[in-house]
């Protein structure tokens, strides 16, 4: 963690109405790494992930305190346009959520709303995104068919392609493989490995083996607090705190 951090937070608190979901989160996320958030259900890891691209703002009655910096800029500053943040910080959701449109239109969506109209350029970027998301070979002959006809694993990789098409710097993944079978999960994990060359990836997962397999750094969340952050290997072999060890060895969770 010696490198300059891509994202860091300072004293982040988050509230759903009156109940506080996150307590004083301070973390540094380094670029071109995979950072995994683990912890039991309801510990705030997904909530924190959604703070990083301001998606929590879409939920009525939420409030945030503290600061989130990306490349040194406070993304919650009043002068910052939320649209710019979300272009730079892409997101893949737990449940694959392709639009009820064709495969091509799904991937081209982010480009089109960004104002890109050139058809050749669109086709080129869509192809590249689909190749990067390791789904091109499966869909190249059916780009105009509805995305709803794809399997669950294919839909999730399509959603990754859709996020990649707008060339974000950071990719947030909220349990991207939790609804998938082991083979589809493996494909997603391989994909994450390839993608970290280009992107800074933050992944939330329930699956500790998955965190151990894909991430470089792991943060353990519990009851809205970060308990321990370290290299993944250290966390899974020699955690400093007993609480972390108990969770990782399955004594609670």
């Amino acid at each position, binding site marked *: 963690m010696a490198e300059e951090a891509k994202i860091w937070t300072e004293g982040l608190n988050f509230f759903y109405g009156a109940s506080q979901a996150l307590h004083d989160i301070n973390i540094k996320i380094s670029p071109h790494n995979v950072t995994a958030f683990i912890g039991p259900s309801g510990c705030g890891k997904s909530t924190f992930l959604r703070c990083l691209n301001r*998606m929590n703002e879409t939920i009525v009655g939420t409030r945030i305190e503290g600061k989130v910096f990306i490349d040194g800029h406070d993304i919650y500053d009043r002068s910052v346009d939320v649209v710019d943040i979300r*272009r730079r910080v*892409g997101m893949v959701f737990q449940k694959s*959520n392709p639009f*009820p449109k064709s495969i091509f239109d799904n991937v081209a969506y982010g480009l089109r709303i960004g104002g890109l109209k050139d058809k050749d350029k669109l086709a080129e970027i869509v192809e590249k995104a689909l190749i990067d998301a390791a789904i091109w070979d499966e869909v190249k002959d059916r780009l105009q068919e509805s995305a709803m006809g794809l399997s669950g694993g294919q839909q999730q990789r399509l959603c990754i392609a859709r*996020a990649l098409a*707008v060339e974000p710097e950071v990719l947030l993944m909220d349990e991207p493989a939790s609804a998938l079978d082991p083979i589809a999960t493996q494909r997603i994990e391989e994909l994450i490995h390839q993608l970290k060359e280009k992107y800074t990836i933050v992944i939330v997962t329930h699956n500790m083996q998955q965190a151990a397999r894909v991430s470089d750094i792991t943060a353990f969340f519990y009851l809205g607090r970060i308990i321990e952050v370290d290299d993944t290997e250290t966390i899974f072999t020699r955690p400093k705190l007993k609480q972390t060890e108990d969770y990782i060895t399955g004594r609670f969770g």
Partner: protein
Amino acid sequence: MLLNIKGIMPGMVSKANKSPLPPFNKRGMRGDFKPGRFRWRKAKERLIASFFFFNGMVSIIILAGIFSLLFSEGLPAFKEIHFSDFLQSTWNPTSYVKATYGLGAIMVSTLMVTFGALLIAVPVGLACAAYLAEIASPRVREVLKPIIEILAGIPSVVLGFLGIVVVNPLIARAFGMPNGLNALNGCILLAIMSLPTIISLSEDAIAAVPKTHKDASLALGASRWQTLVRVTIPSALSGIIASIMLGMGRAIGETMTVLMATGNAQAMPHSFLDAVRTMTATIAIELGEVPFGSAHYHALFVIGFVLFVMTFLVNLVSDIILQKYQEVEQ
């Protein structure tokens, strides 16, 4: 895991003992099979099924009845009136010179008033529905939606009154005409009439679009407006089209309002500022006065029949559009 399963088992058994059902016997069953009771249950099922089948058939029977009534009452008109006479423009069966039975003007009038009303009601209704579903705070929505639904309950004669007293002078002043009883007046009133249907059903459809779709769009850097126009409304389109069709059904069949507010001139209209008389108004005005069994009487049923076919076609076309759209979606 194995331990866990064993742990659950005793708990389940004790729960079963507390249940109001008779206890398990030695064979692990609650009581024996009794063929008599089984037969009665099966008969009851069949009885219930046929009851629902009958209820379903009633609507079809009524529809067929209306169709055959219009058809059988309309058919004798062709004994005295040639088919090509109906294709002419002017409807004037009580002329002293020569009775004419042209459906052209009244059909054009009906279509003008209906589509004119939709032209006003669809954009306003959609905008209102989108506001209610996406932008309004829950409290505002809770107040506004019932109010809009109450609007649907206003009797059409009251709206016709409104047309004469309020809209009429407004149009007259705006366009510098002696009076404002014309197609435009009818369009405005029918738009007001079909708005509650369009708003209420479209709002339901828009609110039913899964949040995951909107989240996906927002997370890609789309603004709320872009998300609404490119994701939410297209996803809700089937419901929105259905609401428009229902609103249109109300507009095309509406009688009293247009009868009061559109001026009732039988000539072929040339613009929305001409007085018009719709098919429904023609039937309503004349059927009470016409000698029973005359050519004129039967001709009115021909109008009814044509109106019936028109609404049927509207429904058919919208069904086809919907099906086409849903094929793309799946």
